[in-house]
């Protein structure tokens, strides 16, 4: 039972344009959402998070949007840079700190 889904396994975006990565969840108990970035052969690194009491959180080029009614969150990267090429995982949890991760989306930035 995949409670956190990233339906696009891959995404290619031109450098300088906006990258939009999507994530859907099914468990309405989730109250905290995170995005991680992962390069090959490395561990994921935390990127940005959002609490369910908010609908938007911004950090530099990265913005996460949360639509609780649709159980959907998205990560916007603007402008996209070559160093953004990586696999992006969304994750969610409630209460007990165990994170449920999505399957990941491989983002490729085209120079």
């Amino acid at each position, binding site marked *: 039972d995949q409670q956190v889904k*990233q339906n696009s*396994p891959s995404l290619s975006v031109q450098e300088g344009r906006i990258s939009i990565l999507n994530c859907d969840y099914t468990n309405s108990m989730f109250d*905290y959402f*995170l995005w*991680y970035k992962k390069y090959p*052969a*490395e*561990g*994921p*690194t*935390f990127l940005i*998070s959002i*609490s369910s009491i908010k609908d938007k959180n911004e950090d530099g080029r990265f913005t996460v949007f949360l639509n609780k009614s649709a159980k959907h969150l998205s990560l916007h990267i603007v402008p996209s840079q070559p160093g953004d090429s990586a696999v992006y*995982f969304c*994750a969610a*949890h409630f209460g007990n*700190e*165990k*994170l*449920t*991760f*999505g*399957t*990941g989306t491989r983002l490729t930035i085209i120079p």
Partner: protein
Amino acid sequence: SQTIHQWPATLVQPVGSPLSLECTVEGTSNPNLYWYRQAAGRGLQLLFYSVGIGQISSEVPQNLSASRPQDRQFILSSKKLLLSDSGFYLCAWSVLGQGLDTQYFGPGTRLTVL
């Protein structure tokens, strides 16, 4: 500052052989510790987590086991590896505080079972 170590970085093992992967954390006390597996074409699957010494919770039934002999040491083991155990194994730690309960991952171990 906190750091997390995993070793070995890569490992090639025959089917049926034992496994021991080690993870240690420095610079923090009483962390929550996690073992994840990323298999080809799949997301991050939580295998085990621990909130303290000797306290292990298993998320997925399988031929793997975990132990936490010391506060900042987490070990993933198997008595007999299967082909399906191949993947990228990640250790992570977290400390709950002010809602900033992000997890910090180690560099990972690439396991290939032949």
